[in-house]
């Protein structure tokens, strides 16, 4: 029984780390720019397929290929910011949020179609030789790939934390998130800050996509479910905390894994239930500021 619970816990963390990583990018973009990018999951899917291509066509190890995918998605993010989102960034808050939602929903309709042309509707996966290998520790099974996934996610989130809190540029992102007016008056070029933030957020989504493709199937329609997961995690965590978003991702993963024991296929409702309860009882989220 104890082993079973421990195993469930470990499985929950394996999935939760991916939820957290997907949510961190969404949270970053929303926090700094007040743009709710509901196409976040689409960029995550693109990242997954790029990782798949690198592995399948060029034999690049998926973990070694992560920096490449990160840089590529960063550039894609910057292009999308420049071509699409920068045009709504100049509107005031309410109009901007509405218009950016419409644009992102538009992307959500387009991306899966393009993905179907490029990669077909077949389910894909990145499966290097070591996938499926595992070791036992005290009767609990640890897969090498999920373990690496968790490590990579933790390292990335820690790196983001250090970047935002210790570097000058990172502090300017936090300042911009706090107040655009104060940021402008401090001499921060918030247009530039927005562009880099969007690139970073999309880059994080892409990296999450590769990690996901290592443990789950890759399909052209996977985007929206992952956007929803990330959104639930961001609501659970509250705004303004990168580490909080990651921890909330872990919590959702564990809660889902535990509830799967007695709820079976209805587990997916658990996340939405948490979403509702948090919105009603604690709208600022678990780690959010008032």
């Amino acid at each position, binding site marked *: 029984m104890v082993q079973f619970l421990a195993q469930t816990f470990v499985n929950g963390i394996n999935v939760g780390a991916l939820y957290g990583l997907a949510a961190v990018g969404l949270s970053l973009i929303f926090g700094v720019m007040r743009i709710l990018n509901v196409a976040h999951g689409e960029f995550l899917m693109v990242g997954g397929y790029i990782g798949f291509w690198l592995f399948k066509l060029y034999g690049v190890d998926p973990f070694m290929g992560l920096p490449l995918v990160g840089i590529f998605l960063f550039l894609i993010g910057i292009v999308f910011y420049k071509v699409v989102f920068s045009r709504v960034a100049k509107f005031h808050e309410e109009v901007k949020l509405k218009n950016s939602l419409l644009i992102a929903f538009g992307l959500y309709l387009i991306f899966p179609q393009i993905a179907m042309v490029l990669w077909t509707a077949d389910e894909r996966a990145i499966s290097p030789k070591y996938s499926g290998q595992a070791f036992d520790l005290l009767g609990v099974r640890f897969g090498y790939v999920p373990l690496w996934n968790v490590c990579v996610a933790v390292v990335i989130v820690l790196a983001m934390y250090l970047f935002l809190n210790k570097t*000058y540029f990172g*502090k*300017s992102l*936090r*300042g911009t998130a*706090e*107040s655009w*007016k*104060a*940021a*402008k*008056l*401090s*001499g*921060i*070029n*918030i*247009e530039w800050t927005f562009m880099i933030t969007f690139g970073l957020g999309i880059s994080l989504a892409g990296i999450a996509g590769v990690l996901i493709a290592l443990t789950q199937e890759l399909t052209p329609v996977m985007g929206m479910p992952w956007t929803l997961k990330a959104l639930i995690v961001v609501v659970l965590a509250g705004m*303004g905390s990168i580490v909080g978003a990651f921890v909330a991702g872990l919590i959702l993963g564990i809660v889902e894994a535990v509830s799967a024991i007695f709820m079976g296929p209805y587990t997916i409702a658990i996340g939405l239930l948490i979403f509702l309860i948090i919105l009603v009882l604690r709208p600022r989220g678990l780690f959010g*500021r008032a």
Partner: protein
Amino acid sequence: MFEVNHIDVYYGELKALWGVSLTLDKGEIVALIGANGSGKSTLLEAIAGLLPPTTGEILFEGVRLDKEPSHRIVELGVCLVPEDRGTFPGMNVLENLELGAFSKRGRKEKEETLHVVYGLFPILKNRRNQLARTLSGGEQQMLAIGKGLLSRPKLLMLDEPSLGLAPLVTKNIFEAICQINQTGVSILLVEQNVHIALKVAKRAYIIENGRIVQHEQAKNLLEDKRVRQAYLGIHST
């Protein structure tokens, strides 16, 4: 050194400033006086690039500020400390001051300026690891001014520095403002405490309904009967 020439500024559809002109010499303190909603803050925001004017020009040391984005204006040495103080409430005092020095101009001399600011407001040094939002009103204003100074401004614009402060704290803040001015920084001051504003300023402009209606030496305005009635609340003689 600094000139505003016939600017019109709109808040969306609403015209807020009508042909406003103003000059300021190097090292001067100039006050801008007017009732609530007369356009004082709007003028400062227009200069800082937050609300660019539709017509007219703003010249600073020969450069057209009205064509530049706000971060470039800071880089050129013009800094606004806004009425809401323009600090980052969720960041600590030191981080606020560091971001004040974000411009290349400020960053070059960050350590020296930080030393100067701590000299001017020693309490900020004690509070450096505290979140800005946990500071008292007076400390927040000190932080706002200190943060502005870290951009190494040649022209510092202060919007209502005494707002919500106790008289003694106001006095400290204004002593600091005079000290800052003595280091060669020009100051454009918007202040509801007209008496203290006219005491420290050399000249003053009176703004009503978005138009400059009077421009005078500050000490003359202190004697001016109309000004005494309208802004100082003194009705006798």
